[in-house]
């Protein structure tokens, strides 16, 4: 048995609130504890997803949140895996529970973000590729997103309108989500009229950066039995790295690996992330009812459809145009509104994806419910080779 139960989920609404990230984390943690019907004193273990933009307290998030909730001698861990930090923290908690070291754990991630482009951590650091890419290339995150988007246009005939349609869909999905930062309908014309950031991507194709916090209370199935009748379960957590040679240029690298002596792997990195989760859960793409994917850009959402096997390679635009990834379609994607409606709060985001699926599977996703959803998958990719994919089921 490798499953754990989700007893409670909670979030602090996303926005640009300008307060200390610890406040968002504590608010989310208290909401998750309330949702679980448990108190802070019931928690054996805290897994914190780190933020690297908020000083030392951010590097030791597990301890920071524990202290903020009140020291009481619980076990603690903190982890950083860039955008994948949240899922990696879930995995830490899962391992403790499945190993029998604890019964019930709290997973928390929260962030306070600066305005504008994500910039590297300050100071002169010419040994750090993340610093160097800005210095030598002026390569921002959207630069990389745009390279992938352009590739879709060249390979599959994607159009700027297709990318805009992703935003239109997600904006519609997120309208009624109380935790979403942007709750406003958007048209294809709105997206097309917004300024180009990195061609072919426009401002409304690219997700913003946000403040926010998300938390989950997870436990062994045994413990869960004593508290709730039929909890949502986590069936898989994929935290894989790429396999050499990685032949797609990834942030923040200057070059790909070379395929001159070792042939490319059977699965590229993004394909491998979801594959590992499916394999662990013993299911396939055909079993999935709902997905939360990391739409850092609109075009990237289309890549994920294919990486998760929701459609064949090159068919993502058709899946979208046919409405299959809208709520009511065959496989709704980002019913929460996705990053398009949230903006990215790095350490909280992968946890927020699982919070959304939990609400969906419980039938509590008011105003954005995917009817009858029983199996959901999240997917996300963190800088420097951190895969993340979580499968939840009823």
């Amino acid at each position, binding site marked *: 048995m490798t499953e754990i139960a989700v007893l409670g989920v909670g979030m602090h609404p996303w926005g640009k609130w300008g307060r200390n990230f610890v406040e968002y984390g504590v608010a989310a943690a208290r909401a998750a504890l309330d949702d679980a019907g448990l108190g802070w004193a019931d928690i054996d273990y805290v897994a914190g997803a780190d933020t690297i933009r908020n000083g030392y307290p951010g590097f030791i998030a597990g301890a920071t949140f524990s202290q903020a909730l009140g020291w009481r001698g619980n076990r603690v861990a903190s982890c950083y895996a860039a955008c994948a930090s949240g899922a990696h923290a879930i995995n830490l908690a899962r391992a403790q529970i499945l190993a029998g070291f604890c019964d019930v754990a709290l997973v928390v991630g929260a962030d306070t973000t600066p305005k504008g*482009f994500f910039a590297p951590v300050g100071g002169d650091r010419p040994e750090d590729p993340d610093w160097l890419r800005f210095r030598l290339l002026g390569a921002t995150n959207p630069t990389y997103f745009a390279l992938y988007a352009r590739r879709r246009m060249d390979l599959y005939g994607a159009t700027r309108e297709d990318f805009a349609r992703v935003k239109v869909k997600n904006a519609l999905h997120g309208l009624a989500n109380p935790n979403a930062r942007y709750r406003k309908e958007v048209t294809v014309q709105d997206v097309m009229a917004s300024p180009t*950031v990195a061609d072919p991507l426009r401002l409304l194709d690219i997700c913003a950066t946000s403040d926010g916090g998300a938390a989950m209370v997870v436990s062994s199935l045994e413990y869960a039995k004593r508290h709730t009748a039929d909890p949502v379960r986590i069936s898989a957590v994929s935290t894989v790295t790429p396999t050499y*040679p990685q032949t797609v240029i990834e942030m923040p690298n200057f070059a790909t690996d070379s395929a001159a002596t070792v042939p490319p792997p059977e699965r590229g990195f993004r394909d491998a992330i979801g594959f590992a989760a499916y394999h662990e859960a013993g299911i396939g793409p055909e079993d999935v009812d709902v997905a939360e994917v990391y739409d850092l850009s609109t075009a990237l959402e289309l890549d994920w459809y294919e990486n998760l096997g929701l459609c064949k390679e090159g068919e993502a635009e058709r899946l979208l145009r046919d409405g299959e990834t809208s709520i009511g379609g065959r496989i709704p994607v980002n019913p929460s509104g996705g990053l398009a409606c949230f903006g990215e709060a790095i350490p909280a985001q992968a946890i927020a994806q699982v919070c959304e699926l939990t609400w969906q599977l419980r039938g509590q996703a008011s105003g954005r419910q995917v009817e009858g959803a029983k199996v959901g998958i999240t997917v996300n990719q963190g800088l420097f080779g951190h895969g993340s994919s979580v499968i939840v089921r009823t």
Partner: protein
Amino acid sequence: MDIKTRQAAIEGWFIPGDDRTALVGSRCRECGTYSFPKETFFCKNPSCTGTEHEQVELSRRGRIWSFTNNCYQPPAPYVATTDPFEPFAVAAVELAEERLVVLGQMVSGTSIEDLHAGMEVELVTETLFEDDEAVHLIWKWCPVCPAISDPAPMQQSSPEDPTANQSGDLPASPGRAGS
């Protein structure tokens, strides 16, 4: 009149030059795998424990894998060279022999309307920025002009002046201001 030192914006990654620019990578002495930037100790090939690498110049020409531009000024440590900021193009370029893709800015003045996937490009040296001490140089990609697109010449007789290339040999772009 002061003459500033002209130096690579990063040491050991490329050989700048008015006539010839080359990226400096490495090749594992054990398994032959290429890396850019160059490896100095471990080999990235998981089935190789090699720690010795031969320094190699990478192919100076490649084909565009994908491309884009930056329409907004990137944050520091990027150093803006114009005020107001002028957009610049970036390309990911596939090197056939090394079978890897390398990023670089496109030579100044390149409009993305001039670019397409599969297009052949060649390395040139341009100024990245200037400070009080030096002119800091960087590698950039420059479209290979059809007239001189003979793949053979490693030793070209005529010096390549990227600026001349841009204004003289490329079709005029209907382009957007500044890009």
